[in-house]
């Protein structure tokens, strides 16, 4: 008898069918990966098992846990199962913990509730469990509050809560998506150990094929509410029996057309780069940036936090420079400084031969038309109140003279065309587009003034793999056709590899390593770079390892 066996699960909310046909089994001690695009119904499947579906959702079909029908169980019975026999870990470590209760209380609570243990006994077990997930009581006393922990540490607490009673089944819904790669690797290791230790079944939900392939004994591919195929991961992904699986797998390792060979070592140098070798487009020298800290008291001076420390690099016209590093290492700060949206504490930035630092906003205007930005968040980077035409044309105000109304419209149409969208889209509002389309609009806005440099801060991180592939294509294409140079910020090494000529590896505000992309990523020299590369999931390697 399987530990968990889902047959023909259907879930609908109102008129919408969220899950259409989900079949899945998990055996004791087995790690089953559940993959699929955003919105394919992965989380809903997990919540159905927990019977924690949102208000108004109706589930049918069958979910058997150790032979017991969960869909028919009463709320009291479910309460007995949850936390005791089935544990669950959620995606967002930042918000998954109650901010007003100590971590000790939160771990012990489930223990006390299910076992009726006394306070001290429960705390004892909580302490052991926290120790087990790598939060030893000596350094992380039970009286800590969640806000006193980092994201990775919080996720460990969430895992401790879920595993405190040694459940038979652990459901982990994107347990590492919000974490950086190094932390992700640590958490995944932890989960693997815990499952092996107690012969715990683990249902691991992720959109990252590489992660799932590394971790699972079996994977299930989901698409719009259906499980398309299940099987041994390497086989499923290499055979790609289902067209969707194929699409997914290809997109995950996608490298844009024409970039594969574009390493400067082997020919085909972008056109403009060849000419203007003499002067760098962007040059950053000894850049340092401090954020003011909180004042400890009214009279003491505020201590500051150094986010960038003596950073220097050059970027030549038409080239693509990657900036990689762990979360919080200062990547976005650097981007803001380069775009003169913030003033550095010290150091100089030169753009097209002119000093950017220390200039007034008015003096910056001529430079601004030559540097634009594309952000991570395709939703947040557009004012929802304006139409596309107005949004995309916004930087045109930088041109001198400012183009006429008709001219602007023409330029917008052209920019839209360049990113593969229709002129009609001008009259729509941002919310009428999908995430990928919105990212295209964002790029259209960035290129409308024909800039020499585009800074892309995690510009593809929030996109689904298939959409990500298209956007990467677009970037590569624009680089080729318009000669735009990129400062490409990403935490995803696959992306960096796919699109950049050179990379900078940052660590705690400093440049740890710098060089041609392939060279650095294949053969990292610094400790920081080595850690990063080691932790980064890589689908091809994972499959290869599996197939051995």
């Amino acid at each position, binding site marked *: 008898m399987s530990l968990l066996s889902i047959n023909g699960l259907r879930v609908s909310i109102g008129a919408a069918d969220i899950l259409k046909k989900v079949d899945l089994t998990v055996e004791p001690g087995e790690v089953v990966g559940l993959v699929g695009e955003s919105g394919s119904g992965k989380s809903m499947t997990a919540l159905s098992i927990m019977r924690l579906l949102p*208000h108004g959702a109706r589930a049918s079909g069958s979910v058997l846990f150790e032979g017991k029908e969960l869909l028919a169980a009463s709320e009291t019975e479910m309460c007995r199962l949850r936390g005791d026999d089935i544990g669950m870990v959620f995606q967002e470590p930042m918000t998954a913990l109650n901010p007003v209760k100590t971590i000790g209380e939160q771990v012990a609570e489930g223990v006390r509730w299910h076992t009726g243990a006394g306070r001290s006994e429960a705390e004892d077990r909580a302490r052991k469990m926290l120790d087990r997930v790598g939060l030893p009581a000596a350094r992380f006393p039970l009286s800590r509050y969640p806000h006193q922990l980092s994201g990775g540490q919080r996720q460990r607490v969430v895992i401790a809560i879920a595993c405190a009673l040694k459940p038979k089944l652990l459901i982990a819904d994107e347990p590492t998506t919000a974490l950086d790669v190094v932390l992700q690797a640590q958490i995944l290791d932890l989960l693997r150990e815990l499952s092996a230790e107690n012969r715990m079944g683990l249902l691991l939900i992720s959109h990252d094929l590489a992660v799932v392939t590394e971790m699972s004994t079996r994977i299930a591919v989901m698409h719009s509410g259906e499980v398309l195929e299940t099987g041994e991961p390497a086989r499923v992904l290499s055979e790609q029996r289902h067209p969707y699986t194929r699409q997914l797998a290809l997109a995950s390792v996608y490298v844009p057309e024409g970039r594969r060979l574009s390493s400067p070592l082997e020919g085909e140098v972008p056109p403009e780069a060849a000419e203007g070798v003499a002067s760098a487009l962007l040059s950053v020298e000894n850049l340092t940036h401090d954020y003011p800290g909180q004042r400890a008291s009214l009279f003491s001076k505020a201590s500051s936090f150094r986010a960038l420390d003596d950073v220097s690099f050059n970027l030549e016209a038409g080239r693509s420079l990657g900036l990689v590093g762990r979360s919080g290492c200062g990547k976005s700060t650097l981007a*803001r400084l380069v*775009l003169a*949206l913030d003033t550095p504490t010290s150091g100089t930035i030169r753009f097209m031969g002119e000093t950017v630092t220390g200039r007034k*906003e008015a003096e*910056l*205007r001529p430079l*601004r*038309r030559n*540097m*634009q*930005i594309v*952000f*991570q*968040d395709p*939703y*947040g*980077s*557009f*004012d*929802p*109140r*304006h139409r596309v035409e107005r*949004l995309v044309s*916004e*930087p045109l*105000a*930088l041109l001198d003279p400012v183009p006429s109304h008709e001219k602007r419209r023409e330029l917008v149409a052209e920019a839209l065309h360049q990113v593969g969208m229709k002129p009609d889209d001008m009259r729509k*509002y*941002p*919310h009428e587009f999908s995430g990928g389309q919105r990212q295209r609009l*964002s790029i259209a*806005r960035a290129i409308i003034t024909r800039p020499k440099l585009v800074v892309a801060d995690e510009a593809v991180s929030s996109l689904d793999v298939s959409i990500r592939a298209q956007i990467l294509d677009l970037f590569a294409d624009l680089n080729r056709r318009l000669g735009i140079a990129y400062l490409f910020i990403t935490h995803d090494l696959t992306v960096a590899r796919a699109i950049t000529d050179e990379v900078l590896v940052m660590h705690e505000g400093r440049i740890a390593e710098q060089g041609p992309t392939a060279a650095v990523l294949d053969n990292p020299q610094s400790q920081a770079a080595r850690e990063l590369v080691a932790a980064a999931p890589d689908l091809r390697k994972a499959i290869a390892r599996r197939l051995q």
Partner: protein
Amino acid sequence: MTHTATPHGFADFLARAFASRSFVLGLVITAAIALMALVSFFWTPYDVTKLVVQNRMLPPSWVHPLGTDQFGRDVLSMIMVGARNSIAVALVAVGIGMGVGVPLGCLAAARGGWQDEAVMRFNDVVFAFPALLSAIMITAVFGPGAVNAIIAIGIFNIPVFARVARAGALAIWPREFILAARAAGKGKASITIEHILPNIATMLLVQGTIQFALGILAEAGLSYVGLGAQPPMPSWGRMLFDAQTRMMVMPTLAIFPGLAIVITVLGLNLLGDGASDALDPKLAGRR
């Protein structure tokens, strides 16, 4: 900051609002009251400035559907004209609050530093005076009257709107589209006008209906203690004040204006509720 916290576009907001029961009910009530006030400009069953003392305190009848007051005035006519007064006072007071408070709040959010601090301290000072207290002091200086009631209530509205605008603006400023606008060379003033204001407008509108309802209650309170609209202009609060000594003889004199206040405030609150639900789809889905 969730992306869903601000809906996309006003049309969308309206569509969601009209799906809400409380919004529609509130709208119907509010519209009815507003209509009543409008009609009173052209027509009331009786002239409320003409006192017919012989007809004093008549119970409701066909001739006077809601009876007459101690001066023989028709209560229905007075309630109609009173609506005008309540709405005018509350509306202008909200206008003052918005007109001064929103720019202040936006300035504080845009500039930060000492300007922010100054606005917040100003808020503290105004907030430190309970509204009725400042109303009493203002009317003590300038004499009671609708205009002074408006000023008193309006002043108290300033920090309310300044706070809401500031909080709203502070939430918008770190958004990426603002950074994009700055990268496009936009200054703080034009960002505030082009991006911040449209994004906090609905929020301000919702706060507006809430303050509107509070304003009507405040006006009633002021009139009740004799500091609001002055005779011969009828007002609901005054009618209640006059009625209270006659509660046992003719309770209807107290009941009708009281109900008028309750219904109007209720209508506005329902409207505001429905609107804020529509504003925050996260909440709306959960109701």
